[in-house]
């Protein structure tokens, strides 16, 4: 390219003549699930605008559940598809479909948690009116009148739509847009807690500032990659890598910054610091939903970038990710040991879990991908289940998240304590839970790829992690209840179903993992 002196109109003209603009062909069937969800999001906005206040909640709920189920059916319909569409920007393939299906089911469970409104005597988990000042007279009136912030459903749907898009994004632009469509609603949702609103708002602001900051890194990385490869298409980038392996500094810096954006969403160390604050501050249903789903979407994107786009330079990124994985596992596990807030503890736990999944990424093999996908599924259900339990454990001021309130909980409610114990054991990777098979798959991939020392670090981290998971069980089961001990509130059918589903899936994946293992094993190839 030495046509620096060419005038702009001439340039445009030349493009127009040489590469006539073709409207990209879009196979709408392939993106039907995304369209359904985003369309529902639009309808949801319209409902907010035009439906009467009393009708909004039922309408929104029907809309959300119907659209999620419809989208799920659409995903099933696409089973085993391997196709590109929209000029190669969207890749519908095994990993994408499996993860989309998982995301939709998890979103369904998340929606059930968000729809729960029998736990808090004054309504659901969200502020009656986000604009009202915390503690003000306004707020009290809104609460008293039973106002509900039904906009959360629009936000929710757009976030889900963004995630679905994230999993199929085959070029960096779509990926960026999906990232933002997913994140922006979540920033808001994080700030909408009914109780402890200062914390919630703080969480939203931190999440937003840091999220935007990381997006900027992602975007600038994408720009540099574009500068290197001349394209933002992942397959095209791969081609460029094999065509011109030299002059790579642009590529390396670009890749690094791109990864920073994705690692941020995953919650990998040292880009993890938002996680505990946001998980703790956000309304618990949102935390559960977000913890389970964002990680899945971001990991699929990470896999796609690394395997499809940068598979040719795996020797470059493997050592770096190796270090990040070790840091993530160790820092997450170690800091969690001294946490006293259950949500914060689970946040650090999710960091550690991200580290374990990164072992599968570093393996850079189909087994690694399959293992990580399995892990993500079990992690998603376990996490959402755990946060569902947290919603139920309450005292006078809402959820009782301080660990001291959990002492002797098993005596108050053996069932809930048992469920939580199952989730903890799964996170700790004890056999007969899904978490064990997940760890097993990922570690197997790691050792098969020769990363034995990484797996050993993972083992050490697992041991440290086991300590704090076990500690909660000790508190619940081995202590006597005291006057600080929280009560377990009987939830409505929404949470009950979500909780039961999460627990069932966690155990079933541990006992009969074969169907899912087969699914992910057959879906371990990205289309390019």
């Amino acid at each position, binding site marked *: 390219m030495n046509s620096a002196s060419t005038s702009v109109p001439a340039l445009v003209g030349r493009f127009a003549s040489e590469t006539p603009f073709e409207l990209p062909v879009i196979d709408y069937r392939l993106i039907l699930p995304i369209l359904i969800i985003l369309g529902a999001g639009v309808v949801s906005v319209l409902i907010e605008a035009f439906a009467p206040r009393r009708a909004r909640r039922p309408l929104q709920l029907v809309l959300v559940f119907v659209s999620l189920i419809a989208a799920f059916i659409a995903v099933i319909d696409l089973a085993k598809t391997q196709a590109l569409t929209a000029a190669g920007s969207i890749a519908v393939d095994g990993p994408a479909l499996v993860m989309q299906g998982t995301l939709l089911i998890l979103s369904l469970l998340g929606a059930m948690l968000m729809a729960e409104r029998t736990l808090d005597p004054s309504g659901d988990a969200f502020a009656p009116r986000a604009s009202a000042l915390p503690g003000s007279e306004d707020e009290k009136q809104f609460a008293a009148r039973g106002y509900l912030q039904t906009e959360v459903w629009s936000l929710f749907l757009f976030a889900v739509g963004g995630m679905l898009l994230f999993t199929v994004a085959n070029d960096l*632009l779509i990926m960026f847009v999906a990232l933002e469509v997913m994140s922006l609603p979540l920033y808001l949702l994080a700030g909408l807690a009914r109780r402890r609103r200062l914390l919630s708002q703080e969480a939203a602001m931190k999440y937003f500032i840091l999220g935007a900051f990381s997006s900027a*890194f992602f975007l600038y990385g994408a720009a540099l990659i*574009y500068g290197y490869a001349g394209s933002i298409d992942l397959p095209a980038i791969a081609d460029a890598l094999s065509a011109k392996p030299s002059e790579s500094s642009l590529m390396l810096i670009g890749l690094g910054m791109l990864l920073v954006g994705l690692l941020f969403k995953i919650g990998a160390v040292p880009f993890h610091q938002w996680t505990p604050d946001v998980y703790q501050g956000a309304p618990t249903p949102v935390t559960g939903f977000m913890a389970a789903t964002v990680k899945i979407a971001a990991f699929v994107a990470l896999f796609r970038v690394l395997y499809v786009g940068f598979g040719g330079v795996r020797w470059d990124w493997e050592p770096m990710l190796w270090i990040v994985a070790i840091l993530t596992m160790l820092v997450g596990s170690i800091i969690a040991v001294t946490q006293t807030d259950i949500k914060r503890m689970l946040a650090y736990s999710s960091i550690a879990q991200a580290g374990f999944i990164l072992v599968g990424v570093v393996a850079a093999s189909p087994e690694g991908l399959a293992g990580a996908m399995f892990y993500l599924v079990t992690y998603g259900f376990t996490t959402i289940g755990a946060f569902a339990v947290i919603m139920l454990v309450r005292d006078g001021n809402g959820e009782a998240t301080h660990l001291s309130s959990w002492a002797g909980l098993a005596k108050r409610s053996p069932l809930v304590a048992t469920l939580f114990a199952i989730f903890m054991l799964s996170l700790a990777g004890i056999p007969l839970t899904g978490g064990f098979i997940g760890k097993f798959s990922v570690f197997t991939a790691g050792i098969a790829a020769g990363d034995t020392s990484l797996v050993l670090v993972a083992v050490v981290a697992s041991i440290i992690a086991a300590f704090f998971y076990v500690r909660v069980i000790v508190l619940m089961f081995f202590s006597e209840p005291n006057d600080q001990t929280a009560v377990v509130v009987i939830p409505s059918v929404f949470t009950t179903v979500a909780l039961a589903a999460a627990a069932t899936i966690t155990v079933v994946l541990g006992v009969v993992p074969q169907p899912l293992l087969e699914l992910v094993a057959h879906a371990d190839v990205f289309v390019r």
Partner: protein
Amino acid sequence: MNPSNVVILSAILFSIGAVGVLVRRNAIIVFMCVELMLNAANLAFVAFARTSGNLDGQVVAFFVMVVAAAEVVVGLAIIVTIFRTRRSASIDEPNLLKY
């Protein structure tokens, strides 16, 4: 104009934005710095579109602008809420969540 100079400019802008995020205390200005970073990326995209001889970069720039606009909406909403609650736009003031 040599596109590589433009890229360097974009890098400088990006750095200014990043440093701004780190050093400024006012949430609005921090936010503006983030926007500056996004726009620096835009500039890089446009510049690279020129060197690579296709329009992708320019298309990206438009998309990013739209996304940035959406981001502004969300961001300002959050910041304004915080400001109303705390009577301060300092990014350091909300500091209840830690350790």
